[in-house]
């Protein structure tokens, strides 16, 4: 139990560290939100009046302290740019990114893991080299290049989806899924290829272990060896990578949301950073940090559940 308390404290520390880094970042990056809203033609006095109204005239340290005290009470402050509570902004954005994340995750896991196991199964056969080649090809396609190609082929020429028209889930869920499939695919292809490579390597490593030889000595068939004996051990090695993939898709892929025009966390982060919206950026950064840190925490727990050897004894 002590292990979990210690881990939990470290989580809090890490998240606070990240929030501090954002504060420092805002100290360093130039840019005044009020001037940003009013543009070049507004007079200096008008900008000062707006600063007054928005409360950005206070020194950043005061703003940060207010944000923290608010954060602890569950009030994430008001967005400077959008003049609405950050909470409601997040409330609309998180489902969008999560939907995209979940869709790409489904693709990654449903294709990645079976393909990984299969490519371990066809080791030392010509099939292995073919699969390897396709796999490396998958890794080499950057997701934004894929997006451009998808928009060009499936969007503009074949009209399988209309780029630039994001359909929100509650308005038309079928249309939304049809639209979101393509960004999900652009995110999924490179990540799936990485997962296949990791699963394959983990499986091959486990196949060299002694207990596989024992299983064969008992007359266990190749399939059973792969799926019963080896898979469980291999997954223990792959879970941390899966954790990393989940964290990255859930925290929103900035470029994919930008290219496809999806109003998610990633796109909001860009606009909040470029418009120096301090409370919004802080909340977004902390939200992303919490996701990553929580998922790493879950990864630890999952590993302990699967692998009794590590249970509760501290794994250095």
């Amino acid at each position, binding site marked *: 139990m002590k292990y979990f308390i210690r881990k939990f404290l470290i989580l809090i520390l890490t998240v606070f560290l990240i929030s501090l880094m954002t504060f420092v970042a805002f100290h360093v990056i130039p840019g005044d939100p009020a001037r940003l809203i009013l543009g070049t033609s507004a007079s200096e006095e008008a900008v000062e009046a707006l600063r007054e109204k928005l409360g950005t005239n206070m020194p950043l340290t005061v703003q940060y302290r207010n944000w923290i005290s608010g954060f602890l009470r569950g009030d994430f402050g008001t967005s400077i740019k959008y003049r609405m509570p950050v909470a409601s902004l997040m409330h609309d954005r998180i489902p969008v990114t999560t939907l995209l994340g979940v869709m790409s995750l489904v693709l990654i896991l449903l294709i990645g893991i079976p393909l990984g196991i299969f490519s371990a199964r066809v080791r030392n056969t010509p099939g292995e080299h073919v699969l390897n080649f396709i796999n490396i090809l998958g890794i080499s396609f950057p997701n934004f290049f894929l997006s451009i190609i998808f928009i060009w082929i499936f969007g503009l020429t074949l009209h399988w989806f209309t780029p630039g028209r994001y359909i929100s889930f509650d308005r038309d869920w079928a249309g939304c899924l049809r639209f979101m499939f393509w960004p999900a695919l652009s995110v999924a292809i490179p990540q799936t290829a990485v997962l296949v490579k990791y699963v394959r390597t983990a499986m091959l490593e486990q196949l060299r272990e002694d207990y596989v030889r024992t299983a064969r000595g*008992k*007359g266990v068939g190749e399939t059973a060896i792969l799926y019963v004996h080896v898979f469980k051990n291999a997954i223990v090695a792959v879970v941390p990578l899966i954790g990393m993939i989940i964290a990255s898709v859930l925290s929103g892929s900035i470029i994919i949301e930008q290219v496809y025009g999806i109003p998610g966390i990633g796109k909001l982060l860009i606009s909040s950073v470029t418009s120096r919206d301090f409370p919004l950026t802080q909340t977004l950064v902390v939200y992303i940090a919490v996701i990553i840190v929580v998922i790493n925490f879950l990864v630890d727990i999952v590993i302990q559940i699967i692998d009794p050897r590590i249970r509760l004894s501290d794994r250095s």
Partner: protein
Amino acid sequence: MKETLLNVKHLTLGVTERDGSVNKAVDDISFEVRKGEILGIVGESGCGKSLTVMTLMGLMKDDVFVMDGQILFGQDDLVRVTPERRRQINGNELSIIYQEPMTSLNPLIKIGRQVGEPLRLHRKDLSDAEIDRMVLELLTEVGIQNPGQIMKSYPHQLSGGMRQRVMIAMASICRPRILVADEPTTALDVTTQAHVLSLLKRVNEEFGTTILFISHDLGVINRICDRVLIMYAGKIVERGRTRDILNHPAHQYTKGLIRSIPTRDQKGKDLICIPGRVPSTMDPREPCPFAPRCGHTMEVCRQTFPECRELAKDHIVYCHMFD
């Protein structure tokens, strides 16, 4: 003459080295395993004893392959048996236990399920309850105090000795005709080793399971084996009843092995040990591999591998000194 269970004829095994070249790890060995006996195979590391038994079980690593020879077992030739047939034999008619108890069990599966797995594979007629009962019974027989609790625990929670007992249970649950034991006690403490050896003897006597026992320790061989083969650098140099071999060793290598064991009366004196070192598969080999270290090498030893000479009943040696 007891009935022959397994007959190895002119078995030759090749190994592909890192640079792609192929060498003979085992060179034209023939021997037979008789029903009910415990046959020992003795030799130092690199003599090919493990490779031979692995080939017998079809568990060779990717870089080892059979160049020539047969292994007749019942009506099957284990060298050319089909994978399906191999799966029926392994665990049912042939089974194996290994040297490293630490890594031979799947760390993430409970002991009960692993021990019961051969039954699930080869005895489809048994229900799960029956299988668990048989596992419980067998674990008690192999000397495990709290079998019920052990069945639910994981390998890392057991001591080395206990794990080896579990391996023996697992290997003998289907009452195989031959149990291969590849240096089962080398990694154990001497007291635990004593227990495991007596357990193996009991398995041999009570279940009538023929045992093929691999070791590099002549003391253990003497303790448990009826007959023994001495192997050196991929060849059998001497074969016979254990007592005959140990009391009247014929081949120079066997003599050297025995002399290099420190005993009570050699204290204070230098041991007479075999000079040089065991050749690896890549080193060039003379026809009689022991020639360079033999001390009694004759011209003929460098030309041909000696014929098989029978010194006494069931005691043969391959050495030109007896031509």
